[in-house]
């Protein structure tokens, strides 16, 4: 008998938190992951607090939670994550301070693919869904450093003024708030619609709540513009083992954790 065989998944490791910053209701956690592979934009990690995971509302959380990588600065071991407190798991993560640690597994899943030649990237983020767009904006800047004219446009939407503080996380975004308390008064998808009316050779990268993504999908379909959507779904394992995270596509259910989280909008009948 080898009790130590009762193991967590391969590659789960401890990552000390090095910094914590607050942007309105959003918390940015920075941690160090010296052993781990470097992530690509759109990939995610399964995170949990190394201590006291559990004991929150309804005695939860139990499972680790999925988080897009917000930034992974080159030539460092750093990983940044953006967390909004929406339940017991995110609450616990938002409490963490430097000297606490994360248990993390990743990078996981398939991230964003480069825009087709000649198409400008438009990044559309809603709420905490701005996270994967930050690292994508960084990566695109590197990829496109010789074509400044092709530099991507970032359109962000937030509930209100306080949430809109999150807009500081990306470079030069245009943003909207639902209540008009700052930026454009309305939905970020209105900004996208305006932009699609002006400019056809674009490729859209979007992440946010399902309703927003469905609007993005429909708009891009109507304008015949390719779109890559980073979706969400409840996950247990994060690496394809449990089939818990499926979403319906035109070709049946796919596991979002291995076939996504970024899916081609064209794959989806609609975002549910």
């Amino acid at each position, binding site marked *: 008998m080898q009790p130590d065989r009762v193991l967590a998944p391969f590659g789960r490791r401890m990552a000390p938190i090095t910094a914590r910053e607050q942007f309105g209701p959003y918390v940015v956690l920075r941690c160090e992951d010296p052993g781990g592979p470097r992530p690509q934009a759109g990939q995610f990690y399964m995170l949990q607090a190394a201590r006291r995971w559990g004991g929150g509302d309804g005695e939860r959380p*139990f499972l680790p939670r999925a988080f897009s990588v917000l930034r992974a600065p080159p030539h460092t071991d750093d990983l940044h994550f953006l967390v909004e407190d929406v339940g017991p798991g995110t609450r616990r993560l938002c409490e963490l301070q430097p000297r606490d640690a994360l248990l993390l597994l990743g990078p996981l899943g398939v991230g964003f693919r480069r825009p087709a030649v000649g198409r400008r990237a438009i990044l559309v983020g809603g709420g905490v869904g701005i996270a994967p767009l930050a690292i994508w904006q960084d990566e695109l800047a590197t990829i496109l450093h010789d074509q400044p004219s092709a530099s991507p446009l970032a359109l962000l939407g937030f509930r209100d003024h306080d949430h809109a503080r999150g807009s500081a996380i990306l470079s030069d975004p245009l943003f909207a708030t639902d209540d008009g308390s700052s930026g454009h008064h309305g939905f970020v998808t209105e900004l996208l619609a305006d932009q699609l009316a002006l400019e056809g050779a674009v490729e859209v990268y979007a992440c946010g709540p399902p309703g927003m993504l469905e609007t993005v999908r429909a708009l891009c379909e109507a304008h015949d513009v390719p779109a890559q959507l980073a979706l969400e779904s409840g996950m247990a394992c994060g690496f394809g*083992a*449990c089939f818990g*995270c499926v*979403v319906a596509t035109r070709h049946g259910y796919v596991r979002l954790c291995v076939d996504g989280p970024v899916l081609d909008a064209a794959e989806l009948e609609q975002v549910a």
Partner: protein
Amino acid sequence: MSGLDFCGLALAHRVINASGTFDAIAARRAFGDQVVERFPFAAYVTKTVTLEPRQGNPPPRLWEIAGGLINSIGLPNKGLREFTRSDLPQLAELPAPLIVNVMGSTREHVGELVAAFAAREDVAALELNVSCPNVATGLEFGSDPAELAGLLDHVRPLTDKPLIVKLTPNAGDVAAVARAAEAAGANALSLINTIRGMALAPGSSEPWLGGGTGGVSGPAVRAVALAQVHSVCSAVGVPIIGIGGVQRGSDALDLLHAGTELVAVGTFSG
């Protein structure tokens, strides 16, 4: 480290995976060859394979509870043919005997699956997932001793490989079902499978899970699993694989102390 013999399978130690929670192919894709090189389990149990491909239940498929989860995955799988063609060769590369878990809703279906894997050298043993209603009688194979005996009478002659019957905890008297399985020729028993459970979408009277109800697993079921395992260990002579809420070494030891030969890790290995 000395090995052990489990129904003729030479195992390196006593901890294996539970069906459906650790996909070795997916793990290898995500984590690389270390999964094979440092394979943690003494045997590998596949996710349930059915005769025909299955899509599984509509999402959402997961609901988290205190110390566990409810899943309504619904046994998605490629079906016998595609599993044999594409998965089996990859699983045969694992450094551990392969146990294929199968399920069907008629005796004949289960028989076809058993016969198909009986012919495969790369399969060391079969596990019958009997948590499925018999489409003919409507009774769950695994919750009724007579149903289960009938199923085993049909499939037992089809293979010399060890047959492990995976019992459902959703039975009034699990020990009676276990005795029936032993009498009908099961070489080993495994338990528990998930316990039927349910959650409503917050603030509504609609079930949260796409499948309506689901199965509860994880530490939350540990005490119930231990009671059932203990009662089955006292009821039968065949070896038992203890499953249910194993998370720490002490949980595995508890099941071994209750009398099991092996312990399987489900939710926590996912």
